[in-house]
């Protein structure tokens, strides 16, 4: 393997400029994602819940909650925890955030 000689910190600055910087829509999206994560984490602190239950507690639309839950599940922060009627329950796996 050839060892690359990359100065990524310098390159990142140029890359950021080249890509138009951290635009307002990007900032807004990042904030919305942080807020959603926090709200879902908060909702799940009391124990496993279904998607509609998380949506009701977090004030997020249920389709968005499903999308975030599946993202967190993919990256190992959320796990399936049984079933309640026609819905699966999900629990937060991380001890703290």
């Amino acid at each position: 393997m050839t060892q690359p000689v990359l100065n990524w910190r310098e390159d990142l600055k140029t890359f950021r400029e080249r890509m138009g910087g951290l635009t307002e829509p990007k900032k807004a999206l990042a904030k919305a994602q942080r807020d959603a994560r926090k709200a879902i984490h908060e909702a799940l602190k009391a124990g496993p819940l279904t998607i509609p239950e998380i949506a009701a507690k977090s004030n997020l639309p249920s389709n968005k909650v499903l999308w975030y839950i599946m993202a967190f599940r993919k990256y190992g922060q959320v796990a399936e925890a049984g079933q309640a009627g026609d819905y699966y329950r999900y629990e937060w796996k991380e001890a703290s955030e």
Partner: protein
Amino acid sequence: MAKIKQRYDGLVVGAGIAGMQAALDLAGQGFDVLLVERQPSIGGVMVGLNKVFPTLDCSSCICTPRMAEVAHHDRITLLSYTELDSIQRDGDGFHVSLTKKPRYVVEEDCIGCGKCELACQPLAPHEFDYGLGARAAIYIPHGNAIPQLPVLDPDYCIFDGNCARVCPTNCIDFAQQPEPISVDAGVIILTTGLKTTPIDAKKEYGGGKWLNVMNPLAMERLQSSNGPFGHVLRPSDGKIPKSIAYVQCAGSRDKSIGVPYCSRVCCMYALKHGIMLKHELHDTEVTIYYMDIRAFGKGYEQFYRRALAEGVRCVKAKVARISEAENNDLVLRVELIDEGGRVADVRHDLVVLSLGLIPGWQPDGSVPVEMADDGFLRVRDLAIRSAHSSAEGIFVAGVASGPKDIPDAIVEAGAAAMEAAMYLDRTRGRQPEFAGAGAQA
């Protein structure tokens, strides 16, 4: 990036199942092949499917060994994440211009550990799961991806450098730029694949508007063991659906959206979905609203009978419109043909539109081939020269020349590779050790 030579015997454009098969068949005859794919991974549509009909074999179990074989073949050079810019005739051969898109990762040094993806915070809709799942801004396309390398999406990058900070081989390269590549090729095989008709093409069906109206390829992902939800769930709220409807010909045989032809696979994939859904969700009703069931291939009629026997309901009806009721349920207004045209409103939890197949790529003057009236690549004679495009030395296989199922695409890929080999023999000859007995005589 793989070391690119100036000259190849053959160029194959598109690394779905047809492209991979064509590349393997051509390389197997001793020709050096450059296989170009615009996506970050090879495998095309097939690697994202759950099962294949009528055998119900695992799709990726068939596809991934071919992907690995392509990647490790001595005579195949693979260029993923690369766009075809133009093909120009040069005598009997061709001059090809390509652009390698930046992954922002040094391919030779990346070990595919995935640490960059885990460290990356922003989430984006995952293309492989048709937006149902999420991915990070830097991500390995999927578990079966070849090459198993990440790609950075600048549209979602927040420039925090976390990916580079955790990379154990220092291979995140923010300075990468699109890289033009020029090669010469003796013969071309176009296997540019398919897209589905846009889900909102028929406004009366509410695709893109109602959350529980789905694309059939998205349903394939939901049914897959490595799918985005781990189960078949409604996108609106994660409910296990109790009543699922398929609307056939929702993007084919319809002049109003410019797709007058039959897409040839929709009846069979709807039946396949029905069977698989009944296997996973025993008490869920699956109803297929159809105009005609076209089960024309080997074992297809038996497959249709099997679906009926397993409880899939097939109702001869035309769906006029779909509206949304409370709780994101859907109400289908249907004309029931076998009941004298009676009109009924039927409620379902989830609806899959059996969208039509349209070309994944169309010639725009950059490649000297002609398009047929249906938008697919024109072939010279469907009966006896089905792999010949309108241009000498350019061959075509798979859905690039018209809708077809996987077995037909594979057979056609083999034919295209054979035609390409014969063209090379006619124009250039080949190394004696690979020539057949007839050629040596």
